[in-house]
């Protein structure tokens, strides 16, 4: 199965990926897949993988959510769309400054 993913990398650059995917994958699993097999420059933050640290938070299909907890699913437009949280400084791609 393929999942179509859009990632907002800067204000005016959005990249698209077509990722192999299974139904039990989280958004974080999809990002790991992209880092390993599509684009080694993709930047995202995470730590605990268990919903506690909140450092993996991003906009997922437009809503703030934890990427390690959220099941990867396309939004209404058929894409899983990821962008950084709007508040605070973005270091790169989906990574916020702490």
């Amino acid at each position: 199965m393929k999942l179509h993913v859009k990632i907002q990398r800067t204000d005016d650059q959005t990249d698209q990926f077509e990722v192999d995917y299974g139904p039990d994958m989280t958004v974080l699993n999809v990002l790991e897949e992209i880092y390993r097999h599509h684009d080694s420059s993709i930047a995202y933050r995470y730590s605990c993988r268990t919903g506690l640290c909140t450092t993996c938070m991003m906009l997922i299909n437009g809503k703030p959510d934890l990427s390690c907890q959220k099941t990867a699913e396309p939004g209404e437009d058929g894409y899983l769309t990821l962008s950084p949280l709007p508040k605070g400084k973005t270091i790169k791609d989906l990574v916020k400054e702490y």
Partner: protein
Amino acid sequence: MLQLKTIDTDVLVIGSGAAGLSAAAYAAQQQKNVLVLDKGAVGRSGSSVGAVQIAGLGDWSHEDDGIDSYLNDINESGRGLSDPELTQTLAEEIDVSLNHLIEWGLKLDKNENKEVAVSHTSGHSLPRSISAKKGKTGLGILHALRRKATKDENIHTWSDVITLELVKSSERVVGAIVFDLTDNHLYFIQSKATILATGGAGQLYPTTSNPVQSTSDGFSLGLGAGATLVDMEQVQFYPVSMVAPHSIAGFCISFYHYSKLYNNLGERFMEKYAPNTLEDATRDKLSIAIATEIAEGRGTENGGLLLDAQEEIEQVKKEFPHEHKLCRDRGVDLNTGRAEIGPAAHFMMGGVKINKEAESEVPGLFVAGETSGGLHGGNRLGNNALSECIVFGARAGLNGAKLAEEADVPQVDPSVLEKTEAQFKQILSSAEGEYRPYELKERIQSILGVHAGVLRNNDGLLKAQNKLEEVQKQFNQVKITNTAYYSREVLDYIEAGHMIRTAQAIVGSAAARKESRGAHYNTDYPEQESSLQHTLVNFSDNQINIRTAPVKGGL
């Protein structure tokens, strides 16, 4: 010409979990300038985040409890390997450290009678585990410490900066070379006292409860600076953690005492291993039983066993709502089905050898928390890890500040810094190699998972040593395709370098311990020897050296 910038501080704290932030708070109270750095987000990136409870003593303690009975439990659990100087310090100082945290804003969870809720944990003879934030105790402690750090002008924090190596001059640690992922620059931080608090090593294994940052950096940094590691074969596995689905592999299940465990033949196998306690056995015994079932071919396709909690599911939901929900969200419905579980690498009991002042053997270098070794011996008592962090974090901070008061730091030979800088630049231009850094990491994980997990044997440990040597060679053919700022590849590469060194220390120590003791179980020597030995690791001339030494005052 040297390009890296130098930053000066009195006290450098590497790592911002419960141990590092405690150290910072105490050092700053002594009016020292403190710099805390973390390769992830400060205060949000270590194992401390996930900790559920903390053990200790206080005015809430059981009437029969006290320093002696706590001490007794810790020493007994350590299987003869705990350092009495360290256990004594923990038992004597935990109440004071806890009270400081409470002063700084930690609110303990209360029971129905509005008293501090104290609960029982296996291995402790009396109930002495307490919590905060409804069982998110680690988070509660980190919040209190982060607030303290923000308020204190003496503390500066720096996220997203990873330590490459400690720097020495005249046989003393005088700081560290670090790499800021956000601006892609190397820095030399010159410090009068340096405190290592980088947490554990779970990421050396394919399945772990630990966060992604637990790549064993501190053990490797300590070795590089000439410190000694003690009892590194003592890796604690959490017996019951999720094996599938992949997205929650390693997630710890706390409610196994409310569950029944089955192998693929449908047998409730704990009837065989521990007929009296069944699933409510200690972590080391349960891990060995589970690993044996899996090794002998009675596991599931995913290499796990089955946990059934249906009979007590209401209790599970009430006591462990976070775990129950997380399983359900990932498609494992415990109300009607079973979960696939197995052991996951959880805690490093070995570590950098320290004395009760949190000093390593190398002047200028202090170590606290999971990176230090010797306190827990062969088996850590549940909930004593956070206690260790706050007690020895305090010691490291106070003693670091004291040293900073007295210290006159020797100058560093610039050629030492130049060498590291040149080597690092060269790595960053390795786009033509064969192995991506994450692949090197995976190889190390797979070797340790197969040969240095819960069950070990002589042949496997020898194989692991040889295979790790092969991986070490593959570092010369590393391929780094992305060297722009905030590069996960560069981070993975630096971490892989720390991992290979620590992996060699673990495997070497496991091979040197010719018996089974605590968490180290070698099927070729299933019994405990009568003589008590520590395994010790040092690093010199680019070589890991392992030896054993009799335990001081041992039997």
